[in-house]
């Protein structure tokens, strides 16, 4: 047996706890009222182009991404616009959203809703990228970076590999896993389209070894596709991070401050590949996604295909309601996700999972002094010194933090996970990154 690939530096092994991994994806009905936030991707919020009282169909464009980093947003339901108002988002601040009262389920003409698989695609590079932009596709791994920007390759760079992230290294979540099992063919066609858009002839799918069924399924299917290979990877968090995945699969290191394209790679999530298949072949904009609802005491965990804008209460109810002693609800996975303030927020393009934790597991351990064990240094996948960065950020020594590459931190949380003193390392590093980022921005704008 050959040795499994993985990234070289750092990494941790949290327990998988993938309770929903064996459960097929359930398609949920559209909600009674959909709240579609207008800032669903990284970058500037989209600008609404509908008004109160407008009749809307499924798939209709309701907000345009006008800034460079921004994306289009389409309606996921049909009905009437109730209002355009500020609504609580997962941080508790109010963000502008379009609220739609759902009536029926009427789709915009031209969207192919059948499940028949369509493989031929005769579009040119530019046409594919234009469709990706038009249909509001963003990275569905959780970071929600608008995908079309990744495909605007600078002239002096040549892509060599397309890398597809099927790692799903977040514990507990299984949305990508299920999607690869159930929509494998579609994902592969999506990859084929992306390869053409990039002009590369090699694509690699990285899947962690704890999903043998998905590896086998995709390996069998990929025999039909030229240039697509499936690679089993050793289980290690954060393998799903862009730079770590490139290191695992291609063996290259992305230098500090550079992008994957600088080493000839473009990385996309498997969910994004599926969304691109649907956008290009079926003309369907990004209006739904797969969400895993799970937790140690959730009655019926599950993977759901839901429309964007569905309140997460609906999802939790489908999974048997909120368990009695729930202390924390997390939007995303337990490692990278954020605790949410209210369960009335809607599903957005970046919601990959909802995890409910009981009170006993929800609290932090008390913070003790740093004992200089350097465990955090050993697990840091970027080769940073988290203990040092955290202290520098805590005491506002931002110059020193910048010198120690605080901006390279990918916020994976491995340091905090491993710290025996329970120090909130990542929290302080995030604070430091925020401040250092502002300092750098001020400096560059001054010049």
């Amino acid at each position: 047996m050959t040795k499994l690939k993985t990234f070289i530096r750092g990494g941790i092994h949290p327990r998988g706890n993938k309770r929903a991994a064996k459960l097929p994806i359930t398609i949920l009905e559209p909600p009674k009222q959909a709240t579609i936030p207008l800032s669903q991707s990284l970058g500037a919020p989209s600008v609404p182009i509908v008004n109160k009282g407008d009749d809307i169909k499924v798939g209709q464009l309701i907000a345009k991404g006008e800034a460079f980093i921004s994306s289009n947003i389409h309606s996921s339901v049909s009905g009437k616009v109730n209002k355009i108002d500020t609504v609580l988002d997962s941080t508790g601040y109010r963000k502008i959203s379009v609220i739609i009262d759902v009536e029926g389920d009427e789709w915009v003409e031209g969207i192919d809703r059948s499940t028949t698989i369509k493989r031929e695609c005769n579009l040119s590079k530019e046409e594919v990228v234009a469709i990706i932009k038009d249909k509001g596709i963003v990275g569905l791994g959780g970071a929600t970076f608008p995908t079309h920007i990744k495909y605007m390759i600078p002239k002096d760079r040549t892509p060599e590999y397309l890398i597809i992230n099927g790692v799903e290294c977040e514990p507990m979540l299984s949305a990508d896993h299920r999607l690869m099992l159930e929509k494998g063919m579609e994902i592969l066609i999506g990859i084929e389209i992306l390869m053409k858009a990039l002009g590369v002839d090699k694509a690699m799918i990285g899947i962690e070894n704890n999903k043998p069924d998905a590896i086998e399924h995709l390996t069998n299917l990929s025999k039909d596709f030229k240039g697509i290979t499936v690679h089993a990877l050793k289980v290690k968090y954060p393998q799903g991070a862009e730079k770590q995945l490139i290191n695992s699969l291609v063996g290259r290191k992305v230098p500090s401050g550079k992008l994957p394209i600088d080493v000839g790679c473009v990385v996309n999530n498997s969910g994004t590949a599926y969304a691109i298949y649907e956008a290009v072949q079926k003309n369907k904009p990004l209006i739904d996604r797969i969400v895993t609802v799970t937790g140690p005491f959730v009655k019926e965990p599950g993977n759901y295909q839901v429309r964007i804008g569905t309140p997460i209460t609906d999802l939790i109810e489908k999974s048997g309601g909120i368990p009695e002693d729930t202390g924390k609800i997390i939007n995303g996975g337990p490692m990278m996700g954020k605790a949410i303030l209210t369960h009335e927020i809607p599903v957005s393009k970046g919601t990959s999972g909802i995890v409910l934790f009981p009170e006993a597991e929800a609290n932090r351990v008390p913070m003790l002094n740093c004992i200089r064990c350097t465990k955090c240094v050993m697990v840091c996948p970027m080769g940073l010194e988290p203990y040092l960065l955290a202290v520098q950020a805590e005491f506002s020594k931002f110059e020193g933090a910048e010198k120690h590459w605080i901006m390279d931190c990918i916020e994976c949380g491995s340091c905090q996970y491993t710290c025996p003193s329970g120090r909130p390392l990542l929290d302080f590093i995030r604070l430091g990154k925020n401040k250092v980022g502002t300092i750098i921005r001020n400096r560059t704008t001054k010049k």
Partner: protein
Amino acid sequence: MNPILTALIILGVLGLVFGIIIYFVGEKFKVIEDPLIDEIAELLPGGNCGGCGLAGCHAFAEALVTARSFEGINCPVGGAVLEGQIAHLLGIDPVEKEPDIAVVRCNGTFENAKSKLKYDGPATCAFAHNLFVGESGCPNSCLGLGDCEVSCPFDAIHINSKTGLPIVDEDKCVACGACVKACPRSIIELRPKGKKSRRIYVCCTNKEKGAIARKNCVVACIGCGKCVTVCPHDAITMENNLAYIDPQKCKLCRKCAPVCPTGAILELNFPPRKEVVAKDGLSISTEA
């Protein structure tokens, strides 16, 4: 020759040569500084707090001596007494300026703004502000984690553990503005201290619509505009559902506070209110 004598001669000659060089270099690059700068710097408090907006006390003295006037240059720590002394030294007239004080514009105590969540992350406001809205749900509320307390060089602001809000020590606060810069939500403002420390201000910075603001905090400004209509001096303006009392225009007539339906307007250090009978015969307020 005696080795000791040799060493002495060599060192002596070297010393002489370098001494001469240093003398000429010193003459050539002489920095002439007004002796007044040092004299004034000696008078200053010497805390280097930066409250004047300059790099420190020496920079302040320098700026004063070059400008020869108090226009735009003010040491909030020294106040009028210091200004008199400096004016005497420089031979100019002191400028009368009312002393300022830091004012915390949030009254969201544990009782007024009930906590809906529990935050157990790092205790810095800057981080918590980026992370979430605050325990009460008000996006402009004081987070009570004490960035202002840490930033204060004069030990004049402290978080009250009973209310979760900072309290400004009136005797110690010199209005240097360190806390104003430290607060990520811009809750703290410098306002004139007022005669006998009497002040009236809107103790809220929430810009949400009234109903939403009120849901999170019972003493929030709901933007009803009653105070704006009642003010005889046009001192109150309403912007983004939030009233603001201009301290320069406010004559401390106390008409606005009783009409505020939520009690967001605070009066400090006033004598208790007598029963006032309005024109329509209803009593407005008997509150202290």
